[in-house]
């Protein structure tokens, strides 16, 4: 379990997959607008939310993530027209499956964030990080080889 060296508190690892065209730009805007979001959030830029294979989400948990969030363009605004519609179905089914095998529901999330929504990006990340703090470390999808 990752602990803060100074405070001894749980410091989660959060992976945010952000689409290149909207959400990554939204994160940029949050930054240039001096809006704060937790440093626990690590952004991975992907060409489109649709690029995210369900395996990416599971891999993130394997390698030590405590929460995984996917951000993409709003439905209807996809740079490639329809990518996020496919991503939406995939993630719905994947999250439902994770819930089905007993993984806590709050550990995964999808949020649509446009390039103009720096505020939404930062509030989403703050909210999500708070949720992961509440849930504690990921145990049910951990890979013991990657711990320690």
């Amino acid at each position, binding site marked *: 379990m990752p602990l803060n060296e100074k405070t001894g508190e749980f410091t989660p690892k959060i992976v945010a997959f952000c689409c290149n065209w909207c959400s990554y730009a939204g994160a940029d805007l949050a930054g240039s607008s001096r809006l704060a979001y937790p440093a626990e959030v690590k952004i991975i830029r992907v060409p489109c939310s649709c690029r995210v294979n369900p395996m990416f989400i599971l891999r993130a948990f394997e*390698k*030590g993530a405590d929460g995984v969030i996917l951000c993409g363009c709003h439905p209807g605004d996809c740079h490639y027209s329809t990518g996020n519609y496919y991503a939406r179905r995939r993630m719905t089914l994947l999250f439902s499956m994770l819930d089905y095998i007993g993984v806590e529901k709050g550990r995964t999330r999808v949020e649509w964030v446009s390039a103009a929504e720096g505020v939404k990006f930062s509030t989403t990340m703050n909210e999500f990080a708070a949720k992961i703090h509440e849930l504690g470390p990921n145990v049910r999808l951990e890979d013991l*080889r*990657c711990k*320690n």
Partner: protein
Amino acid sequence: MAMMKITRDALPALYARIAAEQSLILPVKTAGQTNFGLWNETADVDLYALKTVKSAKDAFFPQSETLYTCTTEDKKITITPEKLTDEQFVVFGIKACDVQGIKVLDKVFLSAPVDSFYAARRAHGTIVAMACSAPSESCFCHAFGIDPTEPADADVVIWPVGDTLCWKAMTEKGEALTALAGDLLTAADAADETALENAKAFTKSVMQKLPYANLTLEGWGADKTDEKFNSPVWDDLYKGCLACGTCTFVCPTCQCYDIKDYNTGKGVQRYRCWDSCMYSDFTMMAHGNNRNSQMQRFRQRFMHKLVYFPTNNDGMFSCVGCGRCVDKCPASLNIVKVIRAFQKAEKGETK
């Protein structure tokens, strides 16, 4: 050593007593299936199951094990070899066929170059073999000269007779375990010996009535490579094969493994895991694969068990007739069908 006995009711106490000193591995039922597993107070022990799904092979040659770990810190790489087993353990309730399976593994791992991981486990493991009382329809250990009522090469042999189990130590390790069991064991008397002889006779009569009772290995064995390798029979036999690894992974004698690296994010774990000659990446090399059709892979498995292994090991087959592949093959193909198909073809009969 004299014959001892223990009642069935006293078994949990025996497990607890052994487990207090050493790890105890025995047939445990999980979600409806019995496999060898570690004993603990909540374990659902299924000692009387005839066949575990997987053999007891895992106790000495686990399906996967780490060999060494490399960790990096700045520019420094540290290599930590995995520690060899230095704790005693007991494998309880192995059947005669599986004990013979371990002898087959010994041929591979204990001849030079000795496999230190396997050797350490063999040195620290005590084998308590259990005689069979009711072999099933898929059993054919007799074809390999195994007597299921007299398991050979074990440290202790136990025979279930009604609600008692006769117990006999065969080696020094076995005597040490007998001493550990202490007052849970009592001396067997003449009546017990008679009951045991009757039980053995019954088991042997069962063996003779089973469907594979007349199976022989005629035509198979050392130095049969030339006559079998190019036979057209293979072409017909393999077609139903799904190329899964079920037969390999439930087999007590299959010993091939693969070595792989796992990136933990902080370094690399080099580990080995069982491999199956049924898989397309088996013995994959830079130039590709040396067996590139499923027929060749299928042939490899049976030729290895029935021809190549005996050729290199004084006629010892690397099949022990446990019948797990007969029970478990998803496509209902199995080694008995292969043995017989060739015997028929060689006698000029069509299948």
